[in-house]
């Protein structure tokens, strides 16, 4: 092992023993939280720590495992050492349950990579009758679990604070993964057992789901009192977000029509200023991080943000900086800028014209963007990043021209005053990916020629000096295919893995040829998955209930085409179907 560690990049990813890591001990039930990406990515993820904590709080064992980089993975394989957990250094096979966190579609092959390295057969069918851990998945991607249905025994849909550990307790009571166990867990909200549900096809079209019936997502209504790890492991090597994280809110009031997170995490739930302050202080005290990040989908919408910032400033040591990663331009205030001591600010207008921003319900005006930029510049910022999407429904050249115009205006704004540094303006244009449980879930994705045309347009027309980056065509296509895919894709994911595809989310490791060959070998045209879907059609994820009505999505889609803004839930309830469960629907915006 020592030789292998010294030969690979960043050996500290694989040695465990992090300061503050929960002391793992074998227990009555042994859970390993698996993250299908590198250590430094996974260690930044708050969700997996919450899930692990929910097991620890019940006196059960929880350990972690991350996908090893290819150099170490190959080394393990050659040495015949099965993939092991970080703290106990135990083979994954020895646990009772492996829980994979599915954060993005392009991590799917890494699930197979980890199972394979662990010596666990990839599919449920191959594991049948064998003595293997339960293979489970959670995280945002499980709202459409079908493309991975062949590989998992259980999918957790929705909030992971309690259901995962509830399943563990039923497992212990039933003495293993018995029929009774599956019957009992199927009755829980947030549990989907793919073995018990079958999509039924008639004439090549999905006609119904046989078996379990609708699966409701798990919902934690009291976020303030929910499980939260106040002590977390300090990563051995620098992680992508190397800081303490508190979760200010879950859910978002805004309802941007392309945004899956904005719908699947509804309703908005918050933590109190007192709880957040306590959690931030405990985290800084136990980890020694120098920064606290205030996470949510839109931290500017936290009604008591000023109070919270004041409370945190008062309670934390003076050198601790606060990061507000998800501020909308309209909630940006110069004050935060001065606190953060950062040089770069990021805004996401998403679309270049007001018309298209109205279409996507991105309720923000150019004036607001410019005002926020002006405030930032006056506060000393000299770098601005702008995020846009290309290929949104109804987009034309006029909208692309709008992107260029915003850049011109920001440049003029910066040049309007004497500033010590030159402006650095970067623009990133991702290709729109239609996602399940959004008003755009039926939309088509633009094809290769259109992507090329739009990217070329921006390369040609963006003002000089603007740094432009864009996403490659094929990975965005693949993301769209997997996001809206059905069960038939399991075999493609497997074929891609067998062709050597892993770490698909990493530009430098993405193997387009491997994926194309996988689709070809399975006789599936990937482009057929990104066509427009009919609103009357049954969609592969329709058996999942995230409590937002399908009709609401369809209405929102129509409003999009009419260019009508629906706006934020803060301006009144939009009756998305969630009303009974939503504090905001009762007018309780400030309640916790």
């Amino acid at each position: 092992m020592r030789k292998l560690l010294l030969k690979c990049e960043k050996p500290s990813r694989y040695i465990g023993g992090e300061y503050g890591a929960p002391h793992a001990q074998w227990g009555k039930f042994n859970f390993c939280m698996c993250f299908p990406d590198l250590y430094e990515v996974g260690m930044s993820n708050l969700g997996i720590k919450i899930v692990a904590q929910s097991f620890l709080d019940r006196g059960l064992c929880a350990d972690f495992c991350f996908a090893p980089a290819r150099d170490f993975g190959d080394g393990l394989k050659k040495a015949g050492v099965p993939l092991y957990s970080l703290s106990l250094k135990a083979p994954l096979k020895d646990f009772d349950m492996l829980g994979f966190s599915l954060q993005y579609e392009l991590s799917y092959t890494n699930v197979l990579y980890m199972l394979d390295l662990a010596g666990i057969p990839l599919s449920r069918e191959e594991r049948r009758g064998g003595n293997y851990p339960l293979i489970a998945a959670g995280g945002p991607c499980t709202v459409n679990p079908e493309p991975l249905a062949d590989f998992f025994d259980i999918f957790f849909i929705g909030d992971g604070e309690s259901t995962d550990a509830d399943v563990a307790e039923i497992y212990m009571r039933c003495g293993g993964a018995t029929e009774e166990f599956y019957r009992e867990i199927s009755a829980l909200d947030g549990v989907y057992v793919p073995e018990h549900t079958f999509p039924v096809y008639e004439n090549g079209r999905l006609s119904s789901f046989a078996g379990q019936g609708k699966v409701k997502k798990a919902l934690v209504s009291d976020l303030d009192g929910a499980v939260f790890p106040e002590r977390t492991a300090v990563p051995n090597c620098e992680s992508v977000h190397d800081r303490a994280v508190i979760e200010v809110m879950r859910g978002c009031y805004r309802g941007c029509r392309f945004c899956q997170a904005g719908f699947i995490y509804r309703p908005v739930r918050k933590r109190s200023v007192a709880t957040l302050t306590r959690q931030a202080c405990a985290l800084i005290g136990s980890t020694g991080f120098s920064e606290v990040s205030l996470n949510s989908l839109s931290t500017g919408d936290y009604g008591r943000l000023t109070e919270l910032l004041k409370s945190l400033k008062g309670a934390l040591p003076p050198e601790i900086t606060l990061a507000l990663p998800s501020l909308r331009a309209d909630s940006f205030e110069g004050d935060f800028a001065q606190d953060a001591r950062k040089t770069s600010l990021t805004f996401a207008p998403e679309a270049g014209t007001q018309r298209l921003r109205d279409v996507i319900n991105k309720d923000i005006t150019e004036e607001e963007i410019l005002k926020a930029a002006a405030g930032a510049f006056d506060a000393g910022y000299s770098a601005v990043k702008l995020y846009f999407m290309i290929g949104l429904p109804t987009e034309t050249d006029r909208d692309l021209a709008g992107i260029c115009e915003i850049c011109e205006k920001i440049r003029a704004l910066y040049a309007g005053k004497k500033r010590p540094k030159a402006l650095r303006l970067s623009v990133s244009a991702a290709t729109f990916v239609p996602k399940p449980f959004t008003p755009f879930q039926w939309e088509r994705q633009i094809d290769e020629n259109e992507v090329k045309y739009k990217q070329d347009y921006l390369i040609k027309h963006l003002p000089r000096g603007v740094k432009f980056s864009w996403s490659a065509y094929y990975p965005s296509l693949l993301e769209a295919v997997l996001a809206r895919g059905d069960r038939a894709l399991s075999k493609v994911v497997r074929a891609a893995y067998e062709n050597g595809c892993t770490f698909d989310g990493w530009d430098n490791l993405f193997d387009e040829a491997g994926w194309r060959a996988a689709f070809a070998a399975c006789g599936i045209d990937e482009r057929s998955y990104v066509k427009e879907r009919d609103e009357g059609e049954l969609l592969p994820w329709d058996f999942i209930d995230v409590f937002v009505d399908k009709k609401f999505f369809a209405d929102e889609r129509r409003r999009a085409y009419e260019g009508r803004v629906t706006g934020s839930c803060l301006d009144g309830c939009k009756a998305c179907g969630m009303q009974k469960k939503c504090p905001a629907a009762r007018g309780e915006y400030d309640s916790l």
Partner: protein
Amino acid sequence: MIAFKYTKTDGAEYLSHLDLLRHIDRTLRRAGIEVEYSRGYHKHPRIFMGNPPPLGVRSVSEYCTIDTAFGGDFKEAFNRFSPTGVKCVKATACERNPNFAQTITACGYVAEGINNFCAEELLACESIPVTDLRGRDVDIRPRIVSAGWRDGKLAFTLLCGEKNLRPDLFCGYLSQRYGGEAEYILKTESFGATVF
């Protein structure tokens, strides 16, 4: 200021220098030892470390200085909050920064696993040309201070700092010439005017 000697063992030998710096910063914050910050735009804690040993080389002789007014029992406070393997051995208050990176000029190591050979014969060589990790040809003989066998282990002292010779490179050369492989390399001592 406080200068302290610490270990890098029990897995900590796999931490990179920058990661170790972050760990020391965090250990100090957890321990409530307030460190002075630089006054630039990007403020950073005033922590001054000696030259890093190569990744994978264990050490019981690392040195570091921090700018602090802390008056308590530093060793106890540090060790209570430090990661496994990063433990303070000795600490002393000092007026000025001893600048360990510059003042430590040689380090002593022991290694196991290299086949027995005659150290005198090696030291008698006038020059020992090797190719370093960057592919350059260098004569390492002037950088070898001493080498000999102690309790069946190879003990050797190499220059460090400006005329640095990496112990793993040296052991690699010995493996090539005499066979065997250095399983464990441990830095046991540092030499310089400021060490304690």
